[in-house]
């Protein structure tokens, strides 16, 4: 199972923004491989959450650990069957450990997003 986590510039701690985080960590729990990839949505003019969600879906993640997540992105992730967990603490590794130990809660609150751009 692949777990995706939005990362900050330091590539080790969680970025509070899901859509515009600079990097995503894709961690494969089966074989322990980790890939840190640039988020193609980081600089998007609009719809960053949607584009980032697409990236996570394409990365074949089955779980996402995030500080927060917008409604639109959540819709995409859920359509793809990805479980969204709320992070506990700042580090990616501690969150992966917490997930392994069943200490992370499934996210239930999704903010309305920041889509407000006009044509």
């Amino acid at each position, binding site marked *: 199972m692949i777990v995706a986590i939005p990362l900050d510039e330091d590539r080790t701690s969680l970025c509070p923004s899901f859509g515009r985080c600079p990097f995503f960590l894709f961690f494969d729990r089966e074989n322990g491989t980790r890939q840190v990839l640039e988020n193609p949505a980081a600089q998007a003019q609009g719809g960053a959450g*949607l584009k980032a969600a697409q990236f996570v879906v394409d990365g074949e993640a089955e779980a996402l650990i995030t500080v927060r997540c917008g409604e*639109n992105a959540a*819709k995409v992730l859920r359509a793809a069957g990805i479980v969204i967990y709320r992070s506990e603490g700042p580090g990616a590794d501690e969150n992966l450990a917490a997930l392994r130990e069943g200490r992370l809660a499934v996210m239930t609150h999704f903010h309305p997003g920041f*889509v*407000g751009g006009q*044509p």
Partner: protein
Amino acid sequence: MIVAVLSGKGGAGKTFAAVNLAAAAGRAVYIDCDVEEPNGRLFFQPQGVRETAVTTALPAFDREKCTGCRACVDFCRFNALVYVKKAPMVFPEVCHACGGCALVCPAGAVGEQRREVGSLEEGNRGEIHVVTGVLRTGEVSAVPVIRAALEAGLSRRETLTVIDCPPGSGCPVMESVSRADFCLLVGEPTAFGLHNLAMVHELCRLLGKPCGLVVNRETEPYAPLEDYCAREDLPVLLRIPYRPQLARWGAEGAVAAERDPALKAEFVRLWNEMGGDV
């Protein structure tokens, strides 16, 4: 002549100026482009109102024809499309109805559906034709409704068309003034009023529109506003002193120029100064 009335700051008196200008001219088209909170109709109380829906295009996908190439998803600069579980998915409130996804689809799998985003109300008060754009609550973009309201009003080619613009100086305002011959700015003699007036004035100049100012609710000349007008060469066409009676008429939903012949004469003079003829 098409006159756009705008102010930057909300509550400066755009609708007051627009409604009374149209009323003073006697025969006019009044278009309310403040589609998030249209209130000109409260004063005009137009009769014989016809309502029509305003719709925008939204892609509709034919799953049979879709090959999953994602050309549409990659093309959409607004990221309104995603591809999940072997099917494209559209987010209506993010879609700008540009039609690009249908153009780039090599399989002809993208059709069009219509989505209602608001409505137009058209009616009359005497010889004033009143067009009101109403944005559906919760919609993100006002522009489609503004565009439809302008089209309906401007197609009548009346001698005077007054466009009551939304507040601010963003895209809805740009759309509202795009076809105007003249921008009538309504300034409130306060620091906030002047700040937002300067923003919208800059926008109108960038768009190459001639501008003039109505100073509303003036108790005494506000020096920073006077300095601004002198420095930026913005002519003051009308000064409306603060009068509790005007506020009372406003609260009643009355058209002040119909109650006060002197005020009506002032608006007629304003119309003449902009180049119109009553």
